[in-house]
């Protein structure tokens, strides 16, 4: 491509599949027989118009460089530069541009042209892909290669088939954000490769995202790659956890995320593919692969994808992101290093005190019942459980305080050897009261279907400075 130099004289661009071009074919023959140089380009058939010399522009390079909207287009070129142009058929305009009169005997005075092939929606996308400045290396498959197999072989998938990241699909994905493709989003561990918006888009295509999910994926990548979240350590650990993405704010509903029935389960495209896209970025851009730098003893199925939205509308409490400092009505993601979920059933409690006990017992078992303040947890309260707290007037702070109290145990029960088990806290803590969690390490969100007196605990990893801290980031456009 790159700006074709136009021949001087008259230049016409036509396509066979255009009645007006067929109409003016005799006029072009008339002009070709005249004294002035005429160059005719044809977009779809180099044998059209018959009887005159035609330049093949089926690759549309010339048409694209002329920024054509309509065919036929007739131009006058002087010194390689366009000096005049007319579109469609208009006898006066053609006569004026060519300086020849009369022209087109027997033709109507005017006839509008047809759309240039370069603006045909299907073709335009292909052309855009050719000239977008996408910087990723092009990978060409041989004719006999099967696409999904080729991606498996290259190690680019999570074990499930991926959508092939064609330039056209990546361009469509990039429509989902105003951020330029070459903007660096993050340095992704473990290789700390520069991850551009474009690379996120490539992996989002592979994960099956729609373009409108891209801003959420970008925010998730930023949050995951922050120092506090410590994606590097989370990747390398022998522990189960992986990144869990919790989405708040209007974007969740705009892109159709699930915060209701089966919120932590399968079946919703946005939930499924946003979490998956993040994992593919870590795998492909960061180079974090299981068995290599990912050393998880068992892992967890959430490492394919673990992403859901909070049900803010039905919640008795402020949304998680608001609690964490994001203005109300602003979309945000919160990244939590977690696994799970661990189910809690309580179908009989009708007082908050009683229900809090059930939740505390579930939280007590996370990591190990005798190991404390190593880990954080997310409590996902379902609507039917939330109703108990709502009716009793318990806000989130009250629930958290009650849980922390219930989860503070005498050291004698927690130390190594106590209760007939070698695992536990150091003997030096025998005389202390030991809190299982810290106030900032117990995240509470509201999600789930309207029926079922069940909630869930999502267990964490090593907390704080020595491990991972939950990170919230606003979703930009």
């Amino acid at each position: 491509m790159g700006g074709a130099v136009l021949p001087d004289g008259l230049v016409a661009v036509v396509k066979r599949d255009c009645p007006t071009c067929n109409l003016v074919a005799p006029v072009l023959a008339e002009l070709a027989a005249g004294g002035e140089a005429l160059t005719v380009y044809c977009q779809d058939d180099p044998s059209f118009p018959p009887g005159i010399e035609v330049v093949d522009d089926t690759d549309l390079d010339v048409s694209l460089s002329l920024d054509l909207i309509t065919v036929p287009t007739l131009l006058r070129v002087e010194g390689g530069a366009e000096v005049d142009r007319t579109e469609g058929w208009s006898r006066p305009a053609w006569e004026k541009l060519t300086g020849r009169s009369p022209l087109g005997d027997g033709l109507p005075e005017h006839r509008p042209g047809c759309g240039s092939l370069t603006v045909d929606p299907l073709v335009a996308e292909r052309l855009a892909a050719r000239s977008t400045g996408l910087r990723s290396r092009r990978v060409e498959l041989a004719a006999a290669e099967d696409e999904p197999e080729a991606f498996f072989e290259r190690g680019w998938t999570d074990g499930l088939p991926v959508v092939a990241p064609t330039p056209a699909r990546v361009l469509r994905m990039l429509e989902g954000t105003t951020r330029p493709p070459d903007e660096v989003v993050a340095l992704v561990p473990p290789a700390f490769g520069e991850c551009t918006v474009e690379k996120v888009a490539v992996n989002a295509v592979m994960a099956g995202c729609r373009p409108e999910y891209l801003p959420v994926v970008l925010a998730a990548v930023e949050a995951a790659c922050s120092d506090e979240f410590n994606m590097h350590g989370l990747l390398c650990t022998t522990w189960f956890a992986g990144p869990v993405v919790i989405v708040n704010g209007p974007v969740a509903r705009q892109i159709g995320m699930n915060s209701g029935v089966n919120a932590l389960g399968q079946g919703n495209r946005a939930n499924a593919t946003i979490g998956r896209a993040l994992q593919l970025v870590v795998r492909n851009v960061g180079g974090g692969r299981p068995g290599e730098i990912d050393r998880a003893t068992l892992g967890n199925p959430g490492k394919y994808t673990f992403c859901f939205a909070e049900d803010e509308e039905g919640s008795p409490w402020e949304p998680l992101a608001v609690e964490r400092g994001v203005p109300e009505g602003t979309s945000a993601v919160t990244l939590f290093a977690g696994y799970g979920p661990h189910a809690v059933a309580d179908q009989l409690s009708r007082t908050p005190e009683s229900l809090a006990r059930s939740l505390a017992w579930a939280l007590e078992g996370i990591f190990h019942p005798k190991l404390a303040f190593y880990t954080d947890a997310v409590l996902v309260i379902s609507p039917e459980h939330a109703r108990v707290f709502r009716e009793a007037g318990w806000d989130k702070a009250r629930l958290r305080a009650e849980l922390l109290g219930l989860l503070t145990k005498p050291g004698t029960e927690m130390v190594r050897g106590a209760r007939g088990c070698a695992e536990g806290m150091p003997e030096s803590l025998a005389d202390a009261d030991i809190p299982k969690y810290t106030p900032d390490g117990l995240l509470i969100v509201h999600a789930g279907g309207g029926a079922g007196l069940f909630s869930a605990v999502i267990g964490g990893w090593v907390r704080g400075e020595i491990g991972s801290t939950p990170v919230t980031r606003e979703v930009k456009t």
Partner: protein
Amino acid sequence: MSTESRVFLDPTSELEPVARALAPRPASLEGNVVGLLDISKPRGDVFLDRLETLLGERGVRTLRFRKPTFAKVAPVDLRHEIATKCDVVIEALAD
């Protein structure tokens, strides 16, 4: 068209990790300084204490180092210090 539909964008960072050869193994520890790196996993110190004793009995000089947390890469200063002070490193990886 058929060719273009078979062209895909590379989803990786397109970085080739540098493959570094292992440093030559010393034939013996005589005259070498051995760094003992604790990554802060429980009981790593028990293992390294024992090694320190055994190496000391053989007249090998040892230096002790500790990562702030096993969950993160060793700070660059620590890595530099170990590289400049030691000839050999023994790392206690797990509990």
